[in-house]
């Protein structure tokens, strides 16, 4: 870091802008969390007030924990998200390596074909997907969701990762070949560690939409034992009455696991960036 370019005024302005952004971004989350600790009356009377001795209540959390199998929903969401990310990164990275590394007939066409998926929303194919899932007996299993989310995430993953893999030094891969490493080890031990920041980016991009998705759980896996958290929370939102305490508590708790995952990935991201800088 150069000190010469560091004027206090500049860093003040930068911090002010960043802090303003953080406030704007975190405000809705903040409102949800504080209201989840209040009783129903206070939520509507003073939505922005912090919970005090009067209004403090854990009724929402109690309802959520009593109602249905909330931990099972949690677990389902976690399994679906982590497994989908795993497959997206694994298959995405392998496809990207092949596209970036090997010259074969149809390489360019294959790349374009895979990238096409970025532009076409997968939900257009919902009916066909449902028919396929019914035919293969996967309806109401977590596999149905994992497969669909993997398919949904792959196009962007392949696109981003192949771009990064092209930048990995050819000499390094060739040195590995001369030393007798198999293509799989060159991929896993030489190339993947160098594109770790890109992998983390892809993971973060895919994680949130999968965690929050309501559409596919509702259509492909609405059974009690395969409900995801987002779907499970819907019981509190009725057509006529909504149990706001429960909804806000469920949302507050749903934030935690994604935040944990995000911290893991973002650490990878930062490590990747700084290790590139000192090299």
């Amino acid at each position, binding site marked *: 870091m150069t000190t010469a370019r560091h004027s206090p005024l500049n860093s003040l302005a930068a911090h002010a802008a960043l802090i303003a952004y953080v406030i704007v971004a975190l405000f809705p989350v903040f409102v949800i969390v504080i209201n989840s600790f209040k009783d129903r009356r206070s939520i509507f009377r003073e939505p922005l007030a912090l919970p005090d001795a009067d209004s403090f209540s854990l009724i929402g959390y109690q309802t959520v924990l009593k109602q249905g199998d909330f931990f099972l929903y949690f677990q389902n969401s976690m399994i679906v998200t982590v497994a989908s990310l795993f497959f997206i990164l694994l298959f995405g990275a392998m496809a990207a390596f092949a596209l970036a590394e090997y010259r074969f007939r149809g390489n360019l066409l294959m790349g374009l074909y895979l990238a096409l998926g970025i532009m076409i929303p997968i939900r257009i194919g919902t009916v066909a997907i449902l028919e396929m899932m019914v035919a293969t007996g996967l309806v109401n299993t977590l596999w149905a969701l994992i497969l669909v989310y993997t398919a949904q995430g792959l196009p962007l993953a392949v696109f981003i990762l192949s771009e990064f893999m092209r930048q990995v*030094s050819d*000499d*390094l891969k*060739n*040195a*590995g*070949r*001369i*030393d*007798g*490493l198999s293509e799989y080890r060159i991929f896993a*031990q*030489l190339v993947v*560690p*160098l594109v770790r920041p890109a992998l983390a980016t892809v993971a973060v991009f895919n994680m949130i939409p999968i965690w929050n998705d309501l559409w596919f759980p509702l259509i492909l896996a609405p059974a009690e034992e395969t409900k995801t958290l987002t779907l499970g929370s819907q019981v509190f939102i009725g057509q006529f009455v909504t149990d706001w305490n429960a909804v806000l508590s469920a949302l507050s708790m749903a934030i935690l696991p994604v935040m944990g995952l995000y911290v893991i990935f973002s650490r990878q991201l930062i490590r990747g960036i700084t*290790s590139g800088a*000192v*090299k």
Partner: protein
Amino acid sequence: MTALVLDDVCKAFGKVEVLRNIDLAVEDGEFVVFVGPSGCGKSTLLRVIAGLEDATSGRIAIGGQPVNGVPPAKRGIAMVFQSYALYPHLNVRDNMALGLKQEGAPRTLIAERVAEASRMLELGAYLDRRPAELSGGQRQRVAIGRAIVRQPRLFLFDEPLSNLDASLRMNTRIEIAALHRSLSAAMIYVTHDQTEAMTLADRIVVLRDGRVEQIGTPMELYNNPANRFVAGFLGAPSMNFLRAEPLGGPPGATLGIRPEHLTVGADGPLRGEVTHVEKLGGDTNILVRTEGDETLTVRVFGQYDVAVGAALRLGYDERHAFLFAQDGSRLSNR
């Protein structure tokens, strides 16, 4: 026995022909240097020899064994890259040992070879460091060590010194020469650097546009270039070319004279004006614009005082002048 035989090797990327009909034999223990302008196919030829690219046609044999279709690790070669290409996640010791480990060599043999190589290259103190914790020169020595450890029949170097600064380059050049003497393996070395080529090579191969222009010892190429391209490519400052006709040569021909073979003298046949003087201490380069508007470089041994703008007369020795036809081929000397 011959370490390497290339027989009519061609390489094309799609429609682009990069190597055309390369024939070459490298004897055991020989040091062969590839030179040529950028993009002429030197690295591609090296990669074809290493097996990192397949030749489009032609035969390759290493140590008498045909190796077309043999994977790089089984060809008995080792390669040193311009960018070092060390494994970033392994320390120096493991970087050097990986190739042998992959071959399944016994652990004691690996330790022995690594110790030997690190002694030769004075890397003993750094064996536990990662590549990121080494200087450029040390990284390059590790890369060379990684090649030595495998005890290959043929070493391939692709511009190994071009990322080093001038003094380090000279030291490493001398180390490589010493290494070659002590290892007695054949080496193929790609470089842009005149001095490296002239000082290291037993034989130089001059390439242009994927073709071999001439093969010979450094002095053969210097004293007896086959064509104008080779004559101009080797030697620094490079050879002067001027129209031969005004000096009594055949029409259309070009006369080539090396800068050190031009002499300043009152009765020389060439007249001109000094446009620039470079004093290097040991010798002096004088740039002269002749009456025929050609620029000549004159290299005078020692320190020589002459002002820019002064009129000079230059002479040359017929025995040291080369005559080239219009297409660049060499005409027999007069």
